[in-house]
C-alpha cells in the first residue's frame, strides 16, 4: 500500500465510513481473544511452584502495562502527524486514546499492588517500574485535563500535541531518574517485578493470547472513541455556526 492511500483515511468522512465496516469485526475479535486469554489464564494454567496461584495475575498485569506504554506511544505518533500534516483525525485519535491508556495504567498499577501484597508483603513499594507507571498515570491525567480545559478544538489539539512531545521526553528522563534514584536507596532490586528469566510454555501461550486480546481491545476502543470525537467535533461546529447565523 502506498502512503497516499493511507492518508485518505485521515479524511473524517472516509474514516467514519471505513470504520463502520471494520469496527464490528475488530470488536468481535477483541472480545473473543481477550475472553479466551483471560479464561485460559484464570482456569487452565498451573500454579507457579514459588508464587502459587498469584502467577495468574500476570495475564492482566503484563498486557495492561504493555498497553499503557503503547497507548502513549500511539498518542506521540498521532500528535506528530497532527503537528506535521495537520490531519484532524490524527489529533482526535490521540484524544480518544488517552482515557484508554489511563485505564490501562490504572489496571497495571492496581494488579501490581495486589500482586505485590502477598509476594513482597507490601501493597506499594517504590520500585522503579511501579514508580514510573505512577508518573505515567500523572502524565495521562494532565494530558486529558488539558484537552478538557480548552474550548477551541484546534488550539487544544496543538497544545496537547506539544505537551505529548515534551511529556515523552520527560517521561523517558523520569524513567532513567527513577532507576538511578532507587538504586541509590536500596542495594540491588530485591523487589523486582520481573518474572523468572525463562517462563514455561504453559504460562507463555495464554499470556500471548491475553496480550493480543488487550491490543485488539485497545484498537477497537480507540476506533470507536475516535468516531465519537469526530462526531462531537462536528456537532460543536454545527452548533456554533447555527448560533452565528441566528445572531
Amino acid at each position, binding site marked *: 500500500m502506498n502512503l497516499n492511500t493511507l492518508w485518505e483515511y485521515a479524511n473524517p468522512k472516509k474514516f467514519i465510513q471505513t470504520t463502520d465496516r471494520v469496527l464490528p469485526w475488530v470488536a468481535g475479535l477483541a472480545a473473543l481473544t481477550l475472553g479466551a486469554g483471560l479464561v485460559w489464564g*484464570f482456569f487452565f494454567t498451573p500454579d507457579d511452584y514459588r508464587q502459587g*496461584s498469584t502467577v495468574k*495475575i500476570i495475564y492482566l*498485569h503484563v498486557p495492561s502495562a504493555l498497553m499503557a506504554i503503547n497507548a502513549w506511544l500511539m498518542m506521540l505518533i498521532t500528535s506528530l502527524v497532527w503537528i506535521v500534516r495537520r490531519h484532524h483525525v490524527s489529533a482526535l485519535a490521540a484524544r480518544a486514546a488517552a482515557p484508554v491508556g489511563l485505564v490501562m495504567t490504572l*489496571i497495571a498499577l*492496581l494488579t501490581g499492588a*495486589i500482586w505485590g501484597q502477598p509476594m513482597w508483603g507490601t501493597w506499594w513499594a517504590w520500585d522503579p517500574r511501579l514508580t514510573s507507571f505512577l508518573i505515567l498515570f500523572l502524565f495521562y491525567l494532565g494530558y486529558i485535563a488539558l484537552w478538557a480545559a480548552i474550548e477551541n478544538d484546534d488550539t487544544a489539539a496543538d497544545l496537547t500535541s506539544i505537551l505529548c512531545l515534551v511529556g515523552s521526553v520527560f517521561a523517558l528522563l523520569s524513567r532513567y531518574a527513577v532507576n538511578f534514584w532507587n538504586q541509590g536507596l536500596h542495594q540491588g532490586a530485591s523487589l523486582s517485578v520481573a518474572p523468572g528469566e525463562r517462563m514455561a510454555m504453559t504460562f507463555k501461550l495464554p499470556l500471548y493470547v491475553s496480550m493480543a486480546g488487550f491490543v485488539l*481491545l485497545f484498537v477497537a476502543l480507540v476506533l470507536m472513541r475516535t468516531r*465519537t470525537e469526530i*462526531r462531537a467535533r462536528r456537532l460543536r461546529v454545527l452548533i456554533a455556526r447555527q448560533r452565528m447565523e441566528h445572531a
Partner: protein
Amino acid sequence: MPDLGKYADAVLSAYALSVVLIVALIVVSVLRSNRMRTDLQTIEKKLKTDG
C-alpha cells in the same frame, strides 16, 4: 473453579477489579458514542429543515 489456595483473595480481586474497569471503560465509550450519534442526527435534521 480452580483451586487458588491461600492467594485466592489476591487473584480474585485482581481479576474482578480489572474486569470492572475494562467493562466500565467500554460502557462509557459506547454510551458516549451513541449519544453523539443521535445528537448529531438531530441537529443535522434540524439544519436541513431550516433551509
